[in-house]
């Protein structure tokens, strides 16, 4: 019982995006309107090293940000056939594949931007005494919201 309203997880207007990538080159290959709950764990992201998809307005202000999972990996897991043997990893020379995200769509949404947040220089002490590397945010590619397949700026950084 919320004494004062807490935002409930209710289905919302959103768009499912499917991207293809090879290395740092990204193509948006489909946009699909969908109405569904987008979990807080996907949208309430703290500052961390990851890829994100932003929904932005015409002034490039971020309206919603969703974390990308399962993409741009530089290694793959290899699973053991025999129980008890270790799971191992193998390097991938050039990350290649596809991923999907579902991003809330506000009335003033204009375009989609793929964002990379990565550690920058040497780690420094954080507020809890933990060592944290400063993060650098880079816009990788932007795509018009209603367009299909063609990135607004070539889609390459």
């Amino acid at each position, binding site marked *: *019982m919320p004494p004062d309203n807490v935002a409930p*997880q209710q289905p919302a207007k959103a768009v499912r995006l499917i991207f293809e990538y090879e290395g740092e080159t990204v193509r948006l290959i489909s946009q*699909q309107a969908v*109405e*569904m709950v987008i979990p807080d764990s996907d949208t309430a992201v703290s500052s961390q090293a990851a890829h994100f998809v932003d929904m932005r307005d015409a002034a490039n202000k971020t309206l919603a940000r969703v974390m990308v999972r399962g993409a741009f990996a530089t290694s793959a897991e*290899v699973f053991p*056939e025999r129980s008890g043997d270790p799971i191992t*990893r193998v390097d991938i020379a050039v990350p290649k594949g596809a991923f999907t995200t579902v991003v809330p769509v506000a009335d003033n949404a204009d375009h989609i931007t793929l964002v990379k947040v990565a550690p920058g220089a040497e780690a420094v002490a954080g507020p809890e005494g933990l060592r944290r590397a400063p993060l650098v945010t880079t816009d990788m590619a932007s795509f018009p919201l209603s367009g299909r397949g063609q990135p607004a700026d070539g889609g390459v950084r």
Partner: protein
Amino acid sequence: MSTSDGSVLGNTQIFGSAPRSRAFNVVMLAEGFTSTQQNDFNNACSAFVTAFTATPPYDRLKPAINIFRVNVTSTDSGADDPASAGGTGASVRTYFDSTFGTSGIRRLLTCNNTTALQVAAAQIPEFTVVIVVVNSTIYGGSGGSVGTYSLAGGATEIAIHEMGHTAYGLADEYPYWAGGNETGHDHHPAGEPTEPNVTTNTNRATLKWNWAVAATTAIPTMSNPDCTTVDNRPSPVPTGTVGLFEGAHYYHCGGYRPEFDCKMRNLGVPFCHVCRQVIWNRISPLATLPARNRTPINVVARFPEHLDVFAVASNGRTMSDWWDASSGWAGWFQVSGGIASPGGTGSPVTAIARYAGHLDLFTVGTDNRVYSAWWDQATGWSGWFTIGTLVCRSGSTVNVVSRYTDHLDIFTTASDGKVMSTWWDARSGWGSWFQISGGVAAAGATVTAIARYPFHLDVFTIGTDNRAYSCWWDERSGWSSWFAVGNQSCRPDSTVSVVARFADQLDLFTTAPDGKIMSTWWNARSGWGSWFQVSGGVASPGSPVTAIARYSNHLDLFVIGTDNRVYSTWWHDTTGWASWFNVSGGVGKPGGQVAAISRITEHIDLFTVGSDGLVYSTWWDASGGWAGWFQLGVT
């Protein structure tokens, strides 16, 4: 070796009944199954459902999980198996172009992720995760945005592990990169990993899973004495102990995991406590119920350690959740596909337990006819069926009384306001609908009834002159005429709630046109009392007053107040009426209802639709007082 090598046949939901827009939707795609092998895919999906839904915590989150299979034919069977990676050299034409031997490793089984995601989106736009099932008995699989696994024994574990990455951002907890003999993985790099299940932090106070660590557990719990290799010693603490175990996130030292073992470390073992909680936090909010704001909730205790709750979802679905003292709340499910009438406050689902192993349900359907369904512990849920051909007011309530185990009396209002009743008896089945003594109810009024004896009924409603009316049925004399209960004006759409604290006493509660909460009583010796306002209380317009009697000399009332807060008061014969008070800070919907039940005398359970439209519950216990409100879903 592309989509020209097969076709998408369509999808079938093979597990769950949650609304797709509020669910964890798993989509399984067939790869390398020819048109004549689709049944093999179906069987593989069934096996996955069994394994997945038995895996904690998914076993407790089933009400929020849907699983779909998408049947896709391929020209050929299986997957490519390049000889360069030690395979057979097979090259086959399949829809998703799957192949073993990715990156030169035979067990690394991948497919065209773009095609997989596009097919899943076209079939189930609301999907959460996609799993491609490859028709091969060669062991293999992979993760990423699409999980892939073959039909080899144990490969379903790959999909469940990979889902941990894709859906929840869980880290790998194994302490090596290539099995333990690699170089460059002795010490975890500086910096705290962002994933919730690995850390470099050894400070108990700031440890991100310190909520799960017992004060008696040492931190670190297990340290690696030789960082040049993996620590292969057994756990120093019992299985399931949450602490800080060195060796995680691909490094022998400096990276820590929450438990000795976890499915994110080894296949074939359970998820650790921290990973289970992460999964729970992601899915359980989907298991709450957005309900029609003003439709009453019904609750039945078939026995003291069990509750069955019935509510109507915001889209009209007839929903139920149950609680058992041994297992907690099971989660909402739709009862037999029912949809309730949306008029007025919306038709509720009313329920009665004639005996501990049986429930009878009633509602008004979207065609405004009266429907019933039952649950029996021997046979489960029946389908909904109509009771006669009566057409009700849209959104009207069907109230039910069981005078004895083999008999039901039900009451509602016809489309023209006539007060109608019928009965069911185990010997004769359903009777015909009849109008009770020519009675006509005000628009929106409900008909309430109570059986003080097995041979007697008292019925109440608001008449077209907005006064409370009653009549009775007695086995010896039949139906009486209607009579006005005093001269109290009522809201036309109000409910007359009635409680019999003992067989010769009735206490009535309703609301005046200005919302005042009014009561009167009848006693076999003294007759009817006068109407009076209960402790100055005023209800939110349209909110009914709920009353329960825990003792013959005690009453508890519940209502939504004019500020939309949940209020309660009580009456005790020695102290009279208490003042109204807000229950645990709760806020409901304007005109909403509070359902109450006392399954044991020193305990009350409450249910209402909260200000955010979700169903909430709280309880009162004589030893601990009122608990906080919680969203009703799964526990």
